């Protein structure tokens, strides 16, 4: 197991030590609690952290999120504090959307691009309080963010390791938080941020998540991490709370139609072959590109792309049969190769084989039919099907409780 030293102990992150970089994988502040319930001991990596792939059974963890509530450790996510008089203009130059529309106490989804208009990553901007922002993303971006500060009166600091975070997702999540004593949490609307007293400190709660369901994200100082975990599981005990790993989350996010760096697009800064990246338009994110604001990274290239036409469409596919279409080629019904599947699962909630796929324009119109080439095996005997698939415009799973305020009590 990586991250363990010779004594078999996991070293906690210690930035006062000069050689902290020698440790390849850090335990998260929730590690002791995660380890206690991690029956499989299947640890993966997320940047410099150990991150559980699954705790006991990824399908059961998935069902906990859809039918009760599931807890996912978000600590490894990159978190950057952006503050100072020019925080807003600096962010507006960084991302493609109008940041002014994200009011204090609100969260907004965004993407940011290279000058060539190619997506570096997607993430969320938390407008913590007037002029104070936090940018969260899967990949690390400190170098790019610092480059973006030149000419602005703004400071960017990496607070990834200074904030411990859990996602609590699922229909009983609100009730669990209420039971934990968060008064008024039921009044939070999607994308709201609220602060609640916690131990001698403060708990920040945002009604956000990566599951397309009712859910919250909880943010505390690392020293209160274990207390948060304990109180959450205590309050959720009778509400079906379970810990959840990466594998379950991967299913949930495809059902919600959310894209992920490294799967549905290559982060432009980590891509050697420049034609393998995607613009926001090519990821179905044109609603995030606001040409009404002046200079932003990629503006010129994106204007040109808009005039010239896009190369790809990212589509949601509903595929016949029950075989997940991982890594499949996508063809027209006339068998012309036009793209590849980027993410695929058998969706337990939609009861369908679903996928996200990148196809060449002009293909990808709603209702268009494709053939998807699926290889599968039964006891080492391989077969191939050319399954019919349809482009759908609606998200595969989007329950009304996702937006309902106040959510149902349990």
């Amino acid at each position, binding site marked *: 197991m990586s991250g363990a030293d010779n004594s078999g102990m996991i070293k906690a992150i210690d930035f006062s030590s000069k050689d902290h970089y020698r440790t390849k994988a850090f335990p998260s502040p929730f590690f002791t609690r995660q380890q206690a319930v991690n029956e499989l001991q299947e640890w993966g990596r997320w940047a410099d952290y150990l991150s559980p792939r699954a705790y006991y059974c990824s399908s059961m963890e998935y069902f906990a999120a859809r039918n009760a509530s599931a807890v996912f450790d978000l600590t490894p996510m990159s978190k950057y504090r952006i503050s100072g008089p020019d925080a807003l203009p600096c962010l507006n130059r960084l991302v493609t959307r109008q940041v002014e529309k994200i009011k204090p106490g609100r969260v907004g989804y965004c993407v940011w691009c290279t000058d060539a208009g190619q997506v570096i990553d997607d993430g969320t901007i938390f407008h913590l309080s007037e002029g104070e922002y936090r940018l969260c993303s899967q990949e690390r971006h400190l170098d790019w963010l610092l480059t973006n500060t030149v000419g602005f009166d703004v400071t960017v600091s990496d607070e990834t390791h200074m904030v411990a975070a859990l996602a609590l997702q699922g229909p009983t999540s609100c009730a669990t938080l209420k039971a934990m004593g968060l008064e008024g949490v039921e009044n939070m609307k999607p994308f709201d941020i609220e602060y609640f007293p916690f131990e001698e400190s403060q708990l920040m709660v945002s009604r956000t998540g990566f599951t397309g369901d009712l859910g919250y994200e909880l943010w505390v100082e690392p020293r209160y991490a274990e207390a948060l975990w304990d109180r959450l599981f205590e309050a959720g005990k009778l509400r079906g709370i379970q810990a959840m790993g990466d594998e379950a989350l991967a299913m949930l996010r495809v059902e919600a139609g959310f894209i992920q760096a490294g799967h549905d697009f290559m982060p432009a800064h980590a891509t050697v072959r420049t034609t393998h990246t995607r613009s926001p338009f090519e990821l179905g994110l044109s609603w995030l590109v606001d040409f009404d604001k002046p200079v932003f990274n990629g503006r*010129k290239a994106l204007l040109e792309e808009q005039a010239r036409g896009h190369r790809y469409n990212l589509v949601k596919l509903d595929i016949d049969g029950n075989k997940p279409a991982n890594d499949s080629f996508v063809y027209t019904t006339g068998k012309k190769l036009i793209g590849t599947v980027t993410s695929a699962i058998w969706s337990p909630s939609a009861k369908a084989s679903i996928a996200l796929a990148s196809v060449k324009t002009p293909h990808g119109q709603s209702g268009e039919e494709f053939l998807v080439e699926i290889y599968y095996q039964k006891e080492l005997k391989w077969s191939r099907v050319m399954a019919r698939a349809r482009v759908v415009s609606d998200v595969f799973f989007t329950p009304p409780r996702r937006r309902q305020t106040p959510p149902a009590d349990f």
Partner: protein
Amino acid sequence: MTNDIIIIGGGHNGLACAAYLAKAGKRVTVLEAAEQLGGAAITREFAPGYQVSAGAHLLYMLDKNVRKELALESNGLAFSQSNMKTVALAEDGDHLVIANNSAQGAGITDADQVALQEYQRFMTRFASIIGRLHNRIPPRIATKNSSDLLTLAKTALDIRMLGRDDMREFLRIAGINIYDILQENFDHPLLKGALSMDGILGTNLGPRSNNSVFTTLHRLSGLQGINMPRGGLGAVSEALATVARKHGATIRTSAVVTRICMQGDRVTGVELQDGEEISASAVVSSADPRTTFMGLLGARNLEAGFVRRINNIRMRGTAAKLHLALDGLPAFKGLEAGLLGERILIAPDIEYVERAFNQVKYGQHSVHPVAEITLPSLHDDSLAPNGKHVLSAIIQYAPYDLKNGWASQKAAFTEQVIDLLEQYAPGIRQQIIHQEMLTPVDIEREFRISGGHWHHGELAIDQFLMLRPAPHSAQYLSPVDGLYLCGAGSHPGGGVMGSAGRNAASAILKATQKDERS
């Protein structure tokens, strides 16, 4: 009334660009911050009654086309000296004199003579490949544009036309260092020292640094003999200004541009220090790229990847300039009076030059600097009172970012340089009436060149052609509509050439025609 085109900076490139654009019928206004035109190609007083070429002091790269097309000779340009020799000073007074492919004195061997001729032959040949690019707008690489492809093809052809042996040699040496080349070809220390100066003058390189063959070839590429304009280098700028005015350009001095104004994605004009706003449909900047983009336009008006590229341009000046007003002609040990007016070098051997460079790596100035010395007043009595003289010398290495700053160390450095001169010309210290030392920091202040850099940014293979000053602002364009570049920071770089100004004018004419059509 709105102007067609505003040009920021009345250095020689800004003025050349203005002349070409005005000639093509554009309404042009040049705005120069200083009281006097010329930028780093200027003649100005440095002590009462004494004039000096305060920046560039020798003319050897002036673009033939500019000279002819703008008829500079009929507009005031004349020469006090042409085809100057190079004198490589020896401490013992047994100097080496290099002229027209041959060297005399200092016991030079026949073998070195032959080697020198061969060296001049192949270097001139290789330099001409780079030279032919000076008058071409640099091509884009990944392109379907036919003129870009033609330029690339022509360059490839130029290299092929060298023949098998020379082509192989060109490809071998283009990326390596001048130290190795000179060691391979020559024995005489003075000869190697003198020739290495072609690779390092105005650069942040020592003879052993990679890229120093490229800088040598660049310098040789425009070489048409080393000349001294009558009245100093300012005469080139004055002639260009005269031509520009004749064609109707307006030229203003003491006009400091503080801001390039933008609306939407387009440049709309400039704002001056006194608050005056001048609108124009295009703005052309001859200021260095960092001043233009970071200072005048502002990083916030640019996309971040481009900002990073501009900030990463290497532009650390290492050349200082010494000006002396002398009570009479200095006497260099063993140097006959007839050679005093030539180009005089202190670079006694190539190891000395490399050692002079060693200190700059660590933020110090050379302990034993190298120098390129001229006595312009010897053949031009307009520069000094009767019987008195002016010495102008380029001194290397004096890094822009000297550890602990220049303020406290400039006086001592000046003394050290005068001690060095005293070694070769005993008694010169007593002849000094006035002295002026311009460190790169002073050069930055006087000429408004970031880093005080000779070329507005290091001349290197990765900062040349379509990479100069940075991708997306090559071809004299910029990421901002209506903003163009025309100074030494653009292709083909610094030195008093006028090529950047001329090429920029043709790129701008092409672009504005396209704008008018659409």
